[in-house]
């Protein structure tokens, strides 16, 4: 694992967002959080993560719109994206917004950390 890799967590559920941030911090990642897409875009203007952990459905701006803006403004274009969602067709959604990985809610901690670890490795490669 590459320490100090940067991860942005974009999730509207407070509890889940805080917990995700905490466990990622424990693993040595540099973590920032956002409650929705618009807030996440704001973070990306000054900070470029290797990985974005992204909820699909969020208030203000959902994952689809967020990705469009991100591409249009070339914000963190190299970042790997992992979708977290309870939606049904996650594979389809992942393809749709060009995400690199997806994880269906609920998921376990190890699964999530492994996935982030892999994406960080990919991004370094």
């Amino acid at each position, binding site marked *: 694992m590459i320490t100090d890799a940067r991860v942005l967590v974009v999730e509207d559920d407070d509890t*889940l967002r805080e917990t995700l941030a905490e*466990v990622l911090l*424990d693993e040595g990642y540099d973590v920032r959080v956002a409650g929705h897409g618009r807030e996440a875009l704001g973070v990306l203007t000054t900070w470029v993560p290797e990985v974005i952990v992204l909820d699909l459905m969020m208030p203000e701006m959902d994952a689809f719109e967020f990705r469009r803006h991100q591409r249009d403004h070339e914000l963190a274009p190299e970042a790997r994206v992992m979708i977290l969602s*309870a939606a049904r067709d996650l594979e389809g959604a992942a393809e749709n917004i060009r995400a690199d990985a997806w994880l269906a809610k*609920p998921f*376990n901690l190890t699964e999530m950390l492994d996935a982030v670890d892999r994406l960080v490795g990919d991004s370094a490669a």
Partner: protein
Amino acid sequence: MSATAQDPAPEQDEFPGVPQLRGEVAFRLLVDAVQDYAIFLLDPQGHVLTWNRGAERIKGYSADEIIGQHFSVFYVPEEREAGRPMRLLGLAAEHGRYEDEGWRVRRDGTRFWADVILTALRDDDGTPYAYAKITRDLTERRAAEEQQRALLIEQRARTAAEEALLARDRFLSIAAHELKTPVASLQLSAESLVRARDADRMDDERLSTGLQRMTKAAERLGDLVRELLDVSRLSAERAPLVLKPTDLAAVIRDVLARFEEQGEMHRIRFAGPVALWIPGDVARLDQVVTNLVDNAMKYSPDETPIEVELGTRDGTAVLEVRDRGIGLDEATVGRIFEPFGRAENAEHIQGMGLGLYISQQIVSRHGGTISADPRPDGAGAVFRVTLPGAEESAE
């Protein structure tokens, strides 16, 4: 006596080349040859005078057996005892003609569904001297009709069942989706505590935060499950309403007091009578008021006022909850009380979108109505509940 109501047929050959069809003989042969209709005459008292092949086929009596018998033998015992046969003769005498459909009895006791036309044959002074009776066996047609009807009912039932199944699938799919996020929170929080302990990173603060998060997620799960159960119980009408004289004004004040405890009362303004009595279920009405106020809170910015107003109109209690929130468009107004029917512009507000549906179920089971409209100035929404049987108390 003549077998026809018309003038006697002329004696000369009417059907050139067919001497057998001379005069009345032609009509007798015609009537006798008909197999699909029982055609016969009754005397004014109802005794059988003539009989044709159709009558024999349909009713099972030969001419020898039935001529001279009273025609009430064709009727089912209940109708015979109730005097229906003679009543029908009376109606035919009165109106000239009477048509009837119903069960009749064959010689062997079996029943058939008959279409019967009774025609009175009258003297110059109008007195009936006989009745012509034409009976058709409609048993098969009736059976076919009934089969068709049964088929139609079955088809409708099947369509309704299929629709209910689709609605249930949709409901379950959305419910599962909503439940997964708090489950994910709960699982992740618990696992992160275990992981922290295993890595020797556990301290009081971490433990306390983790437990708080788990509690919050569990509470959220509990709320969602309660909503789901409410919906399923209300839609199956299994939840009995206990309608007792209820002071709606007091119910509203109780609900608002709870919001005050949560520190949210500063936004709410209540106007209404000291007491307003209606026949109602206290717990369920509390739920309706809570849902409406909660809804107004959720869908309007902090610090904007929420007005709750209670009054009466023509013996009906009228409750209005007005907010200054995101408002309602036309498409939403029609859908907002459907399960999961929350507004397009509210897609991401937490909750399952069942509160208004539950409220509507409760209100309609009180015999009342619930409606939602945009405020006339467009800024916000007005929810209006009416409940019948109101008595305002001036105490």
